[in-house]
């Protein structure tokens, strides 16, 4: 193999695409990720040397590209992937951040983590086995986390003679399933990660397939949502008061626009208090008085009235405000090894505010394969998905997760040692009562 690092000289005025991959070692996921890195020329000679050396040591014929994504020694020794790893690659069109997540059942929490920031999820299946329980689980996690674009990569096409008659029914079954889950955009691509078919370069073996390669799809998928049509949100992170001679009366609310867009003169509410005011000015990282701030820019907002605003407050578009409430109904993924039970007192982290909360009830658990909900579980354990009811000590401006991923999500944290217990999404997006 001779491919070495050779990324575009004209690198991007392009945008960033965050994607997550789900699938198990058996599906060839590490090989796929290795192939993406290798064929986009992100792999350097010293990395390839190391991979070739280790491959030889292990008695393999060629370089095992899966080794490119090997992480910790603990994992190498056990031949497993225990965590989310982040990979980076670029083409002249886009920069990619890939969250590489292991796909075993017990690692649902890792998939949830990887999918939480992803705009696109790649679900991998083995062409010989088609859609299996694990595939349904992966699709359900993507749907639950509201990943807007899902790609089904039907891998190991080389082992089924590149036959369309194998690919088509798998693609159809998956499309029907994800449609039922409410995934807005689904694309199926026949590939061989091992042989390199349709990953970066088009396959010579599948004339019947006229669609894009995986990389072409990643480069061209339209992930732009126009912030001008979304309800604007900015959780206040930090109050900037320089008190310098030049900025004596400056008082700015620093934060990242999590959705929508703000302009000077816009009428806004400060939540949870509900005070109404207008935006006097917007500064963007040292650039004074810009006329627009949109997601995901980090900016500083100045308000017209001398209202009391501090970290934890959320500045929102006045005409499209979220509900302010102390009662939270949410779907959660339990993360920690210690279980979550009704009556537990925890901290709830939402946006930039942290409040005390109590778990009122555990209402159901969701089976990700059947999408059935089982009522009244005794506890939620690591990797369980469930519906819970919480009561918070202070009112919070909560968006529905289906509309706002950033301000519709929260964490439950153990007050005693700071462990992240549970990841929560406001609302109940999936599943039916038994």
């Amino acid at each position, binding site marked *: 193999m001779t491919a*070495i*690092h*050779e*990324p*575009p*000289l004209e*690198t991007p*005025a*392009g*945008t*960033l695409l965050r994607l997550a991959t789900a699938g198990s070692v058996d599906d060839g996921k590490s090989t796929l990720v290795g192939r993406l890195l290798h064929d986009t020329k992100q792999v*350097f000679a*010293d990395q390839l040397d190391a991979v070739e050396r*280790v491959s030889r040591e292990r008695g393999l014929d060629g370089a095992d590209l899966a080794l490119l994504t*090997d992480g*910790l*020694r603990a994992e190498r020794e056990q031949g497993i992937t225990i*965590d*989310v*790893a*982040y990979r*980076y690659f*670029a083409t002249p069109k*886009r*920069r990619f951040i890939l969250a590489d997540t292991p796909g075993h059942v017990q690692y649902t*929490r890792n998939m*949830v*983590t990887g999918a939480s*920031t992803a705009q696109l999820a790649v679900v991998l299946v083995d062409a010989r086995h088609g859609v299996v329980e694990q595939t349904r689980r992966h699709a359900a996690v993507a749907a639950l986390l509201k990943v807007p674009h899902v790609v089904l990569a039907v891998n190991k096409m080389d082992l089924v003679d590149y036959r369309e008659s194998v690919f088509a029914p798998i693609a159809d079954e998956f499309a029907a399933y994800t449609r039922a889950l409410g995934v807005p955009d689904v694309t199926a691509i026949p590939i061989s990660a091992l042989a390199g078919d349709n990953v970066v370069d088009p396959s010579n073996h599948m004339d019947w397939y006229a669609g894009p390669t995986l990389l072409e799809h990643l480069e061209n998928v339209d992930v*732009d*949502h*126009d*912030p*001008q049509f979304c309800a604007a949100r900015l959780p206040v992170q*930090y109050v*900037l*008061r320089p008190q*310098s001679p*030049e*900025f004596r009366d*400056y008082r700015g609310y*620093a*934060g*990242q626009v999590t959705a929508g867009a703000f302009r000077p003169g816009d009428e806004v509410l400060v939540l949870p208090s509900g005070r109404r005011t207008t935006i006097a000015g917007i500064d963007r*990282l*040292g650039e004074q008085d810009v006329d*627009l701030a*949109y997601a*995901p*820019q*980090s900016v500083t907002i100045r308000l017209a009235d001398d209202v009391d605003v501090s*970290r934890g407050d959320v500045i929102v578009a006045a005409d499209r405000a979220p509900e302010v409430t102390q009662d939270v109904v949410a779907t959660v993924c339990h993360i920690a090894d210690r279980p979550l039970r009704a009556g537990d007192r925890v901290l709830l*982290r939402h946006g*930039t505010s942290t409040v005390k909360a109590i778990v009122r009830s555990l209402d159901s658990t969701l089976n990700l394969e059947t999408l059935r909900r089982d009522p009244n579980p005794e506890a939620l354990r690591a990797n369980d998905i469930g519906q819970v009811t919480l009561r918070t000590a202070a009112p919070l401006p909560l968006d529905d997760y289906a509309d706002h991923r*950033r301000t519709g*999500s929260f*964490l439950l*944290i153990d007050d005693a*040692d*700071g462990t992240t217990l549970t990841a929560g999404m406001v609302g109940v997006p999936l599943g039916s009562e038994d």
Partner: protein
Amino acid sequence: MTVVDTVSPLRLSHLDALESEAAHIFREAAAEFERPVLLFSGGKDSIVMLHVAMKAFWPAKVPFGLLHVDTGHNFPEVLEYRDRTVAEHGLRLEVAKVQDYIDDGRLRERADGTRNPLQTVPLLDAINAHRFDAVFGGGRRDEEKARAKERVFSLRDEFGQWDPRRQRPELWSLYNGRHRPGEHVRVFPLSNWTELDVWQYIEQEKIELPEIYFAHEREVFKRNGMWLTPGEWGGPKDGETIETRSVRYRTVGDMSCTGAVDSTAATLQDIITEIAASTLTERGATRADDKMSEAAMEDRKREGYF
């Protein structure tokens, strides 16, 4: 010919998106911790960190100081840059010196003369002495395999150690910085940047760098396939000969383990072109400390290294 006027949706360039993400991380840490500090070596990653931090808190001052672990083998051009930067922006700087530890016997010089591994103890002592609870580092996940799973908020125990199994999943952009007394959190605002992003950002923002990043004539000698600068730290030894070459540095660390690369790149654009065509990773090309073993970084991280 018809000109169609379409209103394009608002979109950020990848550099602006990365910058906004880093500013968000700085603001989170500054708000959640009592005593943050920024590790500043005068290397490009720490320079970019400081640049983003100053923008994140503008027009206020950066609400934390800088900490430099001085190996005693630093490049003079870099120390000069560090001191000038501190003076220019009115920043606070603490320096923890490896030399002090060697002088009073708390640390012993290694046989190979490299002091990079010796930085861990002075770093942890400085963190304890100043009760720093958040330490901003310029680590990037693209640098090395063990870093690919690093968190943005990385929990360290009271011995500064990193336990992969105690790291918290990071969902959405909700960073959990809670820690027990004596523990601290390493915060990596540039987690999602690549080497090329850093250079492109330096160019976009017109950030000044120490001149050793640009091609210059320098006396060097070859060791372990790298061009090293001669000096009291321990080189050249017998059989190693000094020659003058046009070189530049891709990373800036301790003189004893940071190699120069042959280069004629005199401008940022030259460097970006050179990096884009490079066949070696930045650490593979220039860092002897990572060549020690396949798990070298994983081991050092566990012990409390940056």
